[in-house]
């Protein structure tokens, strides 16, 4: 049955349990609903802190792996595990979720129950993506986190929410389809959906990564490039990488504050995580060949994102474009293939998650009070809430100062 410890499964499914519990409640006691959600979210965060102990520093490979045979044919298994990269991203996710819950305490007033159910399901999906080691399971969770996000934007968003939500879904799904094709192709070639293989506890399932790196499966260069592109496009849309970024400004502007926080803080990392988890390990040759073009796109994204964000009258769009710029750094770091740059990329992911989350919270606060996102109308706001503006700039300066130097450090 399920071999290995249970922490990861708990991490993935606990918010789902919370969501189900919420569904069973009546929808009118708003404060009770909010309290339950925040308790669930905080508990999830505390569970995720256990990961810090579970993954020792300097260990390689996956820790706390859990494996269960799920579907016999085609052989899809429930295989989850955590390593250094995913651990931090999971903790980031579970950290931002209670913050999003708290941020939406007063601003969401209609269909409160459904809102928090969606938020928790989103967390389920995201944590699942970060932890899954079976490609089909990965795809499942990937699609799973699209739906709650779409609802969050489309129901509780601002004026053009339906357009933004549909755009978000279609854009991301278009990429996901390509990824699915890639996954199925790999299955056809290797006979397994598993990524890394699992060889203990009487189970012997080989993984695609193992087969590719050991030479058991050799891909022709053209095939490898096509597969790489299939995965890469899906992740590039999510990052977002220029020129596939246009869903982001609309999604951010129209999303409610909590949605923006989760979107910017967490969902955007899925793209870069996917690149690190799939594109590079499975298709190293193709990655190297494509690196030049990816770097060009990333650099264009950095500069373009910054310049366009400069002239935005709408605050949320400004932050959205700056996210494009910042994640361009991450992609650049990943495709520089240096130890230092990869570390910088991960660090930048975390720093960006926290600082963008903070920025969106502050923007949300501004919006709640002024009901406009046009920065020109917000002049003189600082007088009214001193502490928030200070943190505004501390966060902003943090994201300028620290991540940039670390991530760029080795990209010579």
């Amino acid at each position, binding site marked *: 049955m399920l071999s290995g410890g249970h922490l990861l499964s708990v991490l993935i499914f606990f918010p789902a349990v919370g969501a189900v519990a919420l569904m069973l409640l009546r929808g009118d006691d708003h404060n009770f609903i909010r309290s339950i959600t925040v308790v669930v979210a905080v508990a999830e965060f505390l569970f995720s802190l256990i990961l810090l102990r579970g993954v020792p520093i300097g260990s390689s490979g996956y820790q706390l792996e859990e494996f269960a045979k799920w579907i016999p044919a085609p052989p899809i298994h429930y295989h989850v595990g955590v390593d250094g990269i995913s651990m931090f991203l999971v903790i980031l996710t579970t950290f931002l979720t209670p913050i999003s819950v708290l941020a939406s305490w007063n601003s969401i007033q209609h269909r409160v129950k459904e809102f928090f159910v969606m938020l928790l399901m989103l967390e389920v999906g995201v944590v699942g993506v970060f932890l899954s080691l079976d490609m089909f399971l990965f795809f499942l969770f990937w699609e799973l986190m699209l739906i709650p996000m779409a609802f969050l934007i489309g129901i509780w968003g601002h004026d053009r929410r339906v357009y933004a939500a549909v755009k978000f879904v279609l854009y991301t799904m278009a990429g996901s389809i390509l990824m699915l094709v890639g996954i199925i192709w790999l299955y056809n070639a290797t006979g397994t959906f598993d990524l890394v293989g699992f060889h203990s506890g009487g189970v012997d399932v080989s993984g695609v990564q193992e087969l590719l790196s050991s030479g058991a499966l050799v891909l022709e260069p053209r095939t490898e490039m096509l597969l790489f592109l299939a995965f890469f496009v899906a992740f590039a849309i999510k990052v977002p990488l220029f020129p596939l970024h*246009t869903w982001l400004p609309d999604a951010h502007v129209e999303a409610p504050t909590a949605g923006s926080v989760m979107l910017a803080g967490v969902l955007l990392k899925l793209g870069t995580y996917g690149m690190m988890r799939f594109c590079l390990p499975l298709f190293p040759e193709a990655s190297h060949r494509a690196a030049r073009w990816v770097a060009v796109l990333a650099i264009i994204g950095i500069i373009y994102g910054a310049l366009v964000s400069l002239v935005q009258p709408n605050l949320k769009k400004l932050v959205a474009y700056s996210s494009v710029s910042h994640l361009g750094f991450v992609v650049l770091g990943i495709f520089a293939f240096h*130890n230092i740059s990869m570390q910088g990329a991960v660090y930048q992911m975390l720093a960006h998650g926290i600082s963008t989350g903070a920025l969106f919270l502050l923007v949300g606060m501004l919006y709640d009070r002024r009901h406009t996102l046009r920065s020109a109308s917000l002049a003189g706001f600082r007088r009214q809430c*001193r502490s928030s503006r200070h943190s505004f*700039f501390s966060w902003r300066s943090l994201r300028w100062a620290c991540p940039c130097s670390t991530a760029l450090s080795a990209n010579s």
Partner: protein
Amino acid sequence: MPAHPMLAYLWIIPLLPLLGSAINGLFGAKWPNKFVNLAAIGSTGLSFLCALEAVREFLDSGQVLFRKEFFTWITAGDFRAGFDLQVDQLTVVMVLVVTGVGWLIHIYATGYMAHEGGYYRFFSYLNLFMFFMLILVLAANYVLLFVGWEGVGLSSYLLIGFYFVKKSASDAGKKAFIVNRIGDFGFMLGMFLLFRAFRTLDFQTLFDAQHAAGWPVEAYGQFGTITIACLLLFMGATGKSAQLPLYVWLPDAMEGPTPVSALIHAATMVTAGVYVVARSHILFTHAPTAMLVVAIVGCATAFFAATIGLVQTDIKKVLAYSTVSQLGYMFLACGVGAFTAGIFHLMTHAFFKALLFLAAGSVIHAMGGEQEMSKMGGLSKKVRWTYATMFIATLAIAGIPPFAGFFSKDAILFSSFQSPTGGRVLYAFGLLTALLTAFYMFRLIFLTFSGKPRYDEKKVHVHESPWSMLGPLVVLAILSVIGGWFVLPTFFQGPDYFANFLGPVFGGHESMEAATEAATHQFELILAGVAVAAALIGLAVAYWLYIKRPSKADDLAKSMKPAYTTLLNKYYVDELYAAAVVRPLLWLSTNAFWKATDVAGIDGTVNGIAHGARAIGDGVRHSQSGNTRSYAVWVVVGAIVVLAVIFFWPVASKTALGFVR
């Protein structure tokens, strides 16, 4: 207890102001002023005392360099950057200047800002600045230095824009940060280049003498790695220390409260660039091209800024341009290899410039907020202490012996004269700038304090400042007098104490050797005399124009109208930048990038696809006409097509007819 407890816990020196900042920032909002003062002045004062103690221990230990790694901040691959602090003689000078002058300015600010709103916020930011500045000067590697570098830029932004409700103030803050950032871009590139070449950014490792001996000295015009790295680092220094072409933020920075101008834009932050160049002197001496660039930029800036300062009417703007000009002197010194002279001038400049700004603040405070010199006059009897201290500072900056500025400026001029590359030209401009400096500084004094009052005496009640403000003025005045006396003995063929002190740091890398043969010495005395003469000429002209014949000044301005207006409008540099860089960039971003590419281009494609899908659907739906007969037609047509395919398409017919067989 370790042998040198202060050095072992060196991090206390920057930590104390950070604590003060945090306490004031988090809790100070509701406190009365005196508690805020206690936290702010207390932390800075303690930091100063700790710095004194650290210096004492360092000198006691007789070491050349003390370095301690406190914790490892970044390790990635073989790159390690730690929170490492170091102390050597250069650090001694810098840390004492920063904490000492900083503390005095904090005391001053308690008087100056006493009636301002956001009192706690001001001191929180000021302490934050001290923290970052101390990190900068104590850092033992470029990465940590850069943290401090950025941090002071941030604090500067916060402090300049302190009166954020005023648009010009917040704009000035933004401008400062952004222009700084442009320089920082160069600095970062320089760091990366150094890392790529040497795989380390640690000072001790990089500047190790044996290590450095193995480097080539790159010839003029040759742009090797070291030269480019130095030029890039200098680009950062240009931004931070307001040299051409990135000086434009400093005059605007006068929007901040006067203590801010004194601390950040006179004594400490802007000197960070000079400090970096001095710290990297080993790199620079291996790159003569870079040194030449530094010298030329410094000299040009000194002259350029002095000319602008000649005609400005806002007292703080004159001082701002004066700062730019004096910083130019410091870079000139570094550029010709006289790093000691540059640091010496940094120190004396900190004293008298801070004094000038604080005294100007005192004047502004006395005048109830007026900053225009055209509305001042005749204040000498009314604000005696301010007048006296400011006069002393002016004597110092003009380079009149035996005040501090004379010694440092003289050292710079002497070494630039001796420089093998264009030394005479550099010297000429430097001398001219000294003349101009004396002129505009005395103009400032005369306009502000002498003559008849040009303001309504009934409306403005001129009063002397409280002792919280005057005390620091007096201390700084004393320092401005005696600060240069380290070097006094050289005039009597004695040792140069300052240079000897910094000897271990700059050692055999200065082009200005201690060759005090009689001939050179006499020559030096002659040059010193020429410099003093220039200063006195400047003084005399100012006296004549502003005391004896005040109307002559206006006549002169009118007769040289075009030149006058150009200078008054700062050579229209800001307008040039706005037109050549800012506006095109904004236009480009808005139209070409945002509207054209993003909205029209990419989104257009995406939405276009959606539209296309819809349009196709729209077109095709007409086939669902509900009209049975058209359905019938389609049925028939379909049947015919299938038959045709079966009979005539080779592949299909083989299969289909094969069955029939």
